[in-house]
């Protein structure tokens, strides 16, 4: 039962709670949207590319960014909406790079000579820029081995899963998620670490993501 051997370092679970801070900035047209995307803080880009995941954690996967939703549903630019929704966020290790990609997708679309520049949102349906203020707090949950780890995963909040999978990876600019890092470096199971790192969290609900993590680890425990 190698997988329940004590890890080199214990894994301390953190939780990350967020508060939405309003900026008072709003866009009515695509031109305004792209201009503001260039100027707003990174925490705004983070908020609008990750908000759906938390607010609709039980819904079937939603377009994981607010820009895609607004462009499609409010401006009626379905094609651009699809292009924005299909940006592969997993590719980006930095918010800066994700921001650049969003800007280039919108600017390319505008250059294609469509009438998109003429579209504007009705009053009250403008795009409102919001930023996330994150509070990172250590929880009382600590795992010394994989068996404990999977038991804790079953009961921690979505916020905690979110912190270790999304926040650590992108906002805090770590290359892989925290779970994979620990399993590779402290448990010493690179194969399992790689399997968890390969999960695309952006196309699942948080509930499904939790189940997938539990299932992958349990499978390894069972194989032992």
């Amino acid at each position, binding site marked *: 039962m190698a997988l329940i051997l004590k890890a080199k370092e214990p894994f301390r679970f953190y939780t990350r709670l967020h508060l939405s801070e309003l900026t008072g900035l709003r866009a009515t047209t695509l031109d305004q949207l792209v201009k503001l995307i260039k100027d707003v803080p990174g925490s705004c880009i983070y908020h609008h590319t990750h908000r759906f995941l938390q607010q609709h954690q039980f819904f079937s996967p939603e377009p994981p960014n607010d820009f895609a939703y607004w462009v499609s549903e409010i401006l009626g630019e379905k094609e651009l909406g699809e292009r924005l929704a299909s940006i592969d966020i997993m590719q980006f290790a930095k918010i800066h790079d994700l921001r650049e990609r969003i800007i280039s997708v919108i600017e390319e679309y505008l250059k294609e000579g469509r009438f998109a520049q003429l579209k504007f949102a009705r009053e009250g349906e403008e795009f409102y820029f919001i930023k996330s203020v994150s*509070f990172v707090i250590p929880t009382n949950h600590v795992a010394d081995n994989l068996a404990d780890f999977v038991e804790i995963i079953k009961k921690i*909040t979505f916020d905690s899963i979110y912190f270790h999978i999304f926040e650590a990876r992108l906002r805090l600019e770590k290359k892989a998620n925290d779970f994979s890092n620990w399993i590779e470096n402290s448990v010493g199971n690179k194969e399992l670490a790689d399997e968890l790192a390969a999960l695309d969290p952006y196309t699942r609900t948080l509930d499904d993501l939790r189940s997938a993590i539990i299932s992958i680890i349990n499978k390894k425990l069972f194989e032992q």
Partner: protein
Amino acid sequence: MIKLEEYIPIVGQSVIDDLRLIATRLKGKTIQHINSTSVGGGVAEILSRMVPLLQELGVGARWDLIKGGEQFFEVTKKFHNALHGYPGEITKRDFEIFLETSQQNINEVDTCGNIVFIHDPQPIALVKRRQGNKWLWRCHVDVSDPNEKVWNFLMEYIVRYDAAVFSAPSFSRRLPIRQFLISPSIDPLSDKNKELSQETIDRVLLKYQIPKDKPIVTQISRFDRLKDPLGVIEAYREVKKYINCRLVLAGGGASDDPEGTMVFTQAMEMAKKDKDIHVLLLPQNDIEINALQRASTVIIQKSIREGFGLTVSEALWKAKPVVASNVGGIPLQVKHKYSGLLCHSIQGASFAIKQLLNSPAYAKKLGENGKEHIRNNFLITRHLRDYMLLFLSLYHGEDVVYL
């Protein structure tokens, strides 16, 4: 008194553990809520649950009221309507009355909390008492298109606060202070939202002489022009041409709302020739509201403006299909065609009601989705968490705070 652990079966142990974790960071602080009424309306309802829960978490919390006479509350009602963009003249005398009463309260209210949390415009001027403590202004009103005269008057006070809190993104504008988005919430264990037996529901229907012989469409709201009860009757009449149903318009009054009686009388007048319309001015009785919501086939909230619209959360929590205006905080609660139907007009409302009455399976699915959405985003446990983070943010200016 409801205890935190009673929420565990609803939201899970870990959510409560997180609340306890955050609260440890607020030990020794006292939060002083101040508003203008202890009963009626959403603010008083939330505070009556929030303050004891904060205390149970070990955070000092108290709740104080300002005083005001009839004239003062008439003026603040005018302010309220004006902030919602409703036309109406605000005179120089109105501002004078507001300032006179405010000054009396400034002289009398002890603002001793480490954090003074002011709710709505009525007590806004208390910030003139500000000394070394932190001050928050909580705006529960839809200020997406306010009367500029009133807004500019209030701005003189708003800028003196550390931060403002709004219920929907569309209420925000450029301000020289920080501003946060925090939605209000409902308490699933309160008399208004807890599970009821069929016997209790039937008893309330019997009391108000509402037979169960046909589908019931209900709007629960104060009798307030901005809730558009007359528009609801018009929408019902359109529905009634095709589907035999009943309409229940029920609500109480708030002690700071002198306009309610007039709107109630207008609704009674409009409804008097139709025995299937039940216009009920209810005393403060949450069990009865709960029962009426649970007895309903469809719930409507056809507000013209809406600070947030907690009645929508209440209805969705009971897994009821909802038709609601696309205003204020309602679109945060209702995702169109997923957790309810949004409308923009009387015609739109009647069309949506017809759709739901004619398609019970679709209506049921919307209600079920709505309930999960409320569980995740609009229960008091989430609200408590956001408020505690808000209090902490007053002591931390950065975007990522390590505690």
